[in-house]
């Protein structure tokens, strides 16, 4: 991926913030700028970005962020909430006409993926909804457009209606509907030629088809890699034809797909489906939340944050921090922290959700085995209360007993104690460095032993 995501950006921004104990308005401004850049890099239209960032800034100046221990995550959370709200609910439904056939018109710019999506939709209607669709070849302009649709029809074993390249697209569409009625086919999907939204003649043609066949759905097909111009395209097609939904194609690529947000913002029409490949079964329902994460380039970091929020409350985190600073952190705390992390889900899954985690040096060789955690737990639980609270008590006979009690080799017990002591030493140093900053710079969570 070409750009770092918002999570990485905010993280490095926060690292740069000088510890003042509190997030200042200037800090919020800096963070807002990062949000702006991330969205622009995802191709969200600049006007949409502007409005959006203003909203974020207003909310961020409030206590939510400024009082938080983890301002970066709070900002991401706000961004995510607003973004998901803007993106709307899930609406991957297709209309059903009172009297069949239901007519769907596919429209869009050249090369967006209309013909392919026509085939995919028919496939979906038949497979998922048990319908009998008809494909209509109304693109008389592009060389071999009819051949293409016919091949798609053959691959799917779904009928294709065509009248060659000499017939008028309006007539083709009309006759196709008559044909569908006669053949008892209940969906008619019309594949139209790609055209520019500023081509008045061809836009007129679409309007004539629309008037003539009164479609139940008009799907605007948009390439997910579209840049700033997505708003012009969507706005124009929508104003002239009043589209009922959007299909976003080529999302199997590595584009952030900010166009999705732009289109939703200017047309307020639902994104119904996404194209996830060239094959005819690669059409998926649209999930606003996933799209939000993708635009921000943060993998599933949002899910991760939610999990963390649900399991680690801030009060406990503060207590823990206090302990770290006074170096009174003991095996019980260690166990508790481990438990919290564990309750968030399998470790390697958690790490997989962290953007860039796979790139982190050192992490590669760490065995993210949940079994290991169980062993650590067993070892700690075999310690006496005193031993847990005062690790200095450990001697070789105690270690032997612990090994026996937990059923783990003595070497493993030794390693754990060593690691724990090192961790404690590190904490002491860290809190010494941070002085009175109350750990504002602390990242979300500390995985034990890593």
């Amino acid at each position, binding site marked *: 991926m070409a750009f770092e995501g918002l999570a990485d950006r905010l993280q490095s921004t926060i690292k740069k913030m000088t510890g003042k104990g509190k997030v200042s308005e200037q800090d919020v401004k800096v963070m807002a700028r990062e949000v702006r850049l991330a969205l622009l890099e995802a191709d969200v239209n600049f006007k949409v970005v502007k409005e959006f960032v203003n909203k974020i800034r207003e909310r961020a100046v409030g206590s939510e962020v400024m009082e938080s221990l983890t301002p970066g995550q709070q900002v991401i959370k706000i961004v995510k909430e607003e973004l998901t709200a803007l993106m709307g609910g899930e609406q991957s439904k297709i209309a059903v006409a009172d009297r069949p056939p239901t007519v769907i018109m596919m429209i869009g710019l050249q090369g967006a993926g209309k013909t392919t999506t026509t085939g995919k939709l028919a496939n979906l209607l038949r497979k998922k909804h048990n319908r009998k669709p008809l494909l209509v070849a109304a693109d008389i302009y592009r*060389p071999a457009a009819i051949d293409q649709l016919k091949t798609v029809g053959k691959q799917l074993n779904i009928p294709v209606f065509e009248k060659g390249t000499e017939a008028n697209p309006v007539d083709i569409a009309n006759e196709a509907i008559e044909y569908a009625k006669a053949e008892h086919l209940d969906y008619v999907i019309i594949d139209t030629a790609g055209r520019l939204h500023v081509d008045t003649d061809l836009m007129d043609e679409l309007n004539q088809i629309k008037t003539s066949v009164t479609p139940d759905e008009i799907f605007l097909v948009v390439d997910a890699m579209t840049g700033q111009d997505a708003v012009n395209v969507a706005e124009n097609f929508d104003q002239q034809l009043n589209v009922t939904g959007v299909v976003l194609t*080529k999302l199997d690529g*590595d584009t952030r797909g900010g166009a999705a947000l732009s289109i939703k913002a200017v047309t307020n029409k639902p994104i119904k489906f996404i194209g996830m490949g060239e094959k005819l079964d690669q059409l998926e329902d649209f999930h606003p939340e996933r799209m939000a994460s993708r635009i921000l380039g943060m993998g599933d970091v949002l899910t991760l944050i939610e999990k963390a929020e649900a399991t680690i409350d801030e009060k406990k985190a503060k207590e823990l921090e206090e302990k770290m600073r006074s170096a009174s952190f003991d095996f019980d705390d260690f166990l508790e922290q481990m438990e919290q992390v564990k309750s968030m889900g399998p470790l390697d899954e958690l790490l997989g959700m962290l953007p860039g985690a796979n790139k982190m040096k050192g992490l590669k060789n760490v065995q993210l085995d949940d079994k290991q955690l169980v062993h650590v737990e067993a070892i700690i639980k075999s310690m006496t209360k005193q031993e847990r609270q005062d690790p200095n008590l450990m001697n070789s006979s105690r270690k032997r007993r612990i090994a026996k009690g937990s059923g783990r080799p003595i070497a493993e017990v030794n390693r754990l104690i060593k690691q724990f002591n090192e961790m404690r030493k590190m904490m002491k140093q860290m809190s010494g460095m941070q002085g009175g900053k109350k750990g504002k710079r602390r990242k979300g969570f500390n995985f034990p032993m890593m």
Partner: protein
Amino acid sequence: MSFFKKLKEKFSSTSENKQSSEKYQSGLEKTRQSFSSKLNDLMARYRKVDEDFFEELEEVLISADVGVNTVMELVEELEMEVKRQNIKESDQLKEVISEKLVAIYMDENESIPTLNIQEDELSVILFVGVNGVGKTTTIGKLAYKLKQEGKKVMLVAGDTFRAGAIEQLDVWGERVGVEVIKQSSGSDPAAVVYDGIQAAKSRGADVLICDTAGRLQNKVNLMNELSKVNRVIEREIPGAPHEVLLVLDATTGQNALSQAKVFSEATNVSGIVLTKLDGTAKGGIVLAIRKELNIPVKLVGLGEQMTDLQVFDPNAFVYGLFSDLIDAEAD
């Protein structure tokens, strides 16, 4: 002499320049108007050069899909320039802005990039790019153009995957009147291209143009397949492919930069064809691609007809983008 005057003079010096300028003017009508009028509008609204001014300038550039990094760097440079020259009013900045933008694209004495076509031996041109950008159409247009120039051209249908791809190239071959070498759908593209080369050699063709299936750059297998096609060409003819043209859709945003990077790793991309510039998109990402990867745009697609292909003239492109500004300044 002012920068604008220089550009204008350079521009009107030959009739050929004038001609291509006119084509650009009409082709880029929408692009040009909205871009330079936006810039003019910005100047009119902000007398003073301040933070808000720069933010809006960023937006004007970003709205043309100029890469975000490129824009940020450019604006930073401008901010420094403003400090250095103690510029206070936006008017004074007009020329500096255009100068900086132009400088990304043009060296002082840069000539129009031409296609590397050999005089007395077979030249092979390989077309690559993501799905639906206009590879096959551009091949049809280029075949027409080269044929007009008196070359014997042959096409090879290297897209054996997409429904109707071979038929589409066939129609173009018929339209232009050039032979198309093909196999059945689903066959190995490298084998088809190999066939094409043998046929072109034995029939004494001047130029062989290879179509390939559209592929997204993150599909490792498909990129490997493309490298294989490229290797076959390299092996069969020393020095070939003479051009690897990456086709980019002007509507594409930031992802075009990643396309350029990854396709350059799989093949030796020698130039870019920027298609669909007859729409309202600006294709500004080619500025970022030029800046970061130094790949020149060689051809421009301005429509779906056979004749809608232009040689990319950076002078004309820049002049087209800024002609309002330039004319106003230089007169």
